[in-house]
């Protein structure tokens, strides 16, 4: 190429002309384009296929339990492996309650972290370490969080639980004497685990809000807090909801950390200070030793219910986002 005797100036001009020729559709290029499109579509489809395949396998393995118990499985609450009677209610209840506690705690804290790290309250050298540390929580393996829960968090929060029982026991959710592991502790552990998801995504959403909104709000005489609560948060609401739903999805499916702190009791109790159990925790505890077909079937049925729960949560999120989006309500 360098051997061509032509002046360099001409060459560049010609190349440029070729570059800007948008109508260029020669066969070679379009073949690559086509191939790439197929490749990308293929990858996208493979995700759907894997999900469908998993659901099919779980559904088929759950078949014995579905035939035997039908929908009654959802609202009965006897789990006896020796008698081969199974009911899912305590686990569905526990999964929903522990995740709800987690969301109630993690959403305000996560939002606070997002606001503090995206606004200019603090100098950058404090802001970015805070954001970084919160995101780092997501990198801790859940079994480590669970061990920390058993050996540090439970003893640390035991006086708090005791206090709640002694002073607020007239409220049904605090009306039992705490023994250590409890639904409340599981919710708190889950809150810690989903905090980074909520904080990081909300922060990105807040940062992405166009500058004009902020300046317009300030020029109308709004204070910084008024701007945050009346302009920034409402315009970021769909993104924040998305963050909350991603967090909730993780909370619903969390296994190891939950089973280590929830007490794994098979009884439903209104008191959050009592131990409970969740679907993933039960699966993790019993699957390795399950040998009877019906027992495995019941566990798979539970897995299917968890699938459905997550699906419902995600669909609700989509509906909610559509509903809350300004101009599309």
């Amino acid at each position, binding site marked *: 190429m360098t051997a061509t005797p032509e002046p360099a100036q001409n060459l560049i001009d010609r190349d440029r002309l070729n570059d800007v020729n948008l109508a260029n559709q020669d066969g070679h290029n379009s073949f690559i384009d086509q191939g790439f499109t197929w490749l990308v579509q293929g990858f996208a489809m493979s995700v759907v296929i894997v999900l469908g395949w998993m659901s099919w396998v779980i559904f088929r393995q759950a078949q014995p339990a579905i035939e035997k118990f039908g929908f009654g499985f959802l609202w009965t609450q006897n*789990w*006896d*492996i*020796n*008698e081969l009677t199974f009911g899912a209610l305590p686990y569905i209840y526990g999964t929903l309650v522990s995740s709800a506690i987690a969301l109630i705690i993690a959403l305000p804290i996560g939002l606070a972290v997002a606001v503090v790290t995206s606004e200019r309250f603090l100098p950058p050298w404090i802001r970015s370490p805070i954001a970084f540390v919160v995101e780092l929580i997501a990198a801790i393996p859940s079994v480590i969080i669970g061990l920390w829960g*058993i*050996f540090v968090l*439970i*003893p640390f929060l035991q006086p708090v639980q005791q206090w709640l029982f002694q002073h607020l026991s007239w409220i049904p959710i605090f009306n039992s004497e705490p*023994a*250590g*592991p409890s639904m409340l502790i599981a919710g708190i552990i889950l809150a810690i685990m989903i905090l980074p998801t909520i904080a990081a995504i909300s922060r990105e959403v807040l940062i992405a809000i166009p500058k004009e909104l902020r300046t317009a709000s300030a020029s109308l005489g709004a204070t910084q807090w008024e701007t945050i609560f009346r302009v920034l948060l409402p315009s970021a609401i769909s993104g924040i909801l998305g963050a909350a739903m991603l967090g909730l999805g993780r909370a619903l499916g969390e296994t190891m950390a939950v*089973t*280590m702190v929830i*007490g*794994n*009791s*098979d*009884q439903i109790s209104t008191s959050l200070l009592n*131990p409970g159990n969740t679907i993933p*925790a039960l699966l*993790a*505890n*019993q699957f*390795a*030793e*399950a*040998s009877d077909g019906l027992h495995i079937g019941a566990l798979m049925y539970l897995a299917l219910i968890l699938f459905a729960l997550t699906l419902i949560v995600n669909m609700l999120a989509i509906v909610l986002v559509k509903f809350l989006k300004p101009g599309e309500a």
Partner: protein
Amino acid sequence: MAFSTVAFRRTLTTSVVTVAVAFAPILTAIAQAVTLNGAGATFPAPLYERYIAEFQRKNPDIKVNYQAIGSGGGIKQVIAGVVDFGGSDAAMTDDDIKKVGKGVLLVPTAGGAVAVVYNLPGVSNLKLSRTALPEIFAGRITRWNDPKIAQDNPGVNLPNAEIKSVVRADGSGTTFIFSNHLSAISPYFKGRVGVGTAPKWTTNPIKGKGNPGVAAQVSRTANSIGYVEYAYAKQNKLSVAQVQNKKGEFMMPSVESANEALSTIVFPANFRVFEGDPKSGYPITGLTWMMVYKQYDAEKSAAMKKWVEWVLTDGQAFNNGLEYTRIPTETATRALQAVKNEVKP
């Protein structure tokens, strides 16, 4: 340009040669080694890991793997034929054995005791009779100052407090050994709870995941009682209760008292034992088995025999050091004979 090409070629050639030289021994080792894959019970996993390390030092040409996935998982994988041997704390049932096309032998490899651990402030030498222990875990005795507990503990200041029981959340051989013993000595427990790796407890206990979960719960909750593997109780210095055996003696768990219990057990021809109440020694003692097929290909059957022979002879010397009991010598010899006769290429 020309220089760089030559340099590149040289580097490439050198690296290929280096890599080939470096990996050659590993490749030949892989080519020669026979691999035996096992999976199953978690209870004997630390012992099997030690066995494997020692065995491989003497037999570098045989590679043994053991995955601790639980007894139920071990039996499932043996039936599915995806492993070369399995491990289980509960002897396979007749139905399960029938499902194994190649035929299967159960080889007892070790035994272990389950310790009853408790947390009673101010009490350090609790004794539990054959009436008290099962009824506590079946929910008939609910308070610590119950006369059925007090009568064996004269002079001990038992609190007037509710008994908080702690059990395993995950299905486990430890729970099987424990519930098997309680069912053997108490029809009441057998009727209410029964035997299993995860029976339905009627006392609404707190359930901890694994031995650490139960131990953490008991050590932190006053007035609680639970059960863990003996080795675990010993390492973590938990308060251990004395348990009454068939002779009426109150026994502390130890390798010696568990060995004594095993020595009284009569092993039938197929080595399956469901005994829950040994005549003497520490009563809450159970066994763990290796499940070995009766048929392998020529290479594997030789390796398998070598491995089982080592476990039942030299390997047994490691049991006591790791707080497991030994299989009585006469039984080990019989089991070895059975493997030699029945495992065929």
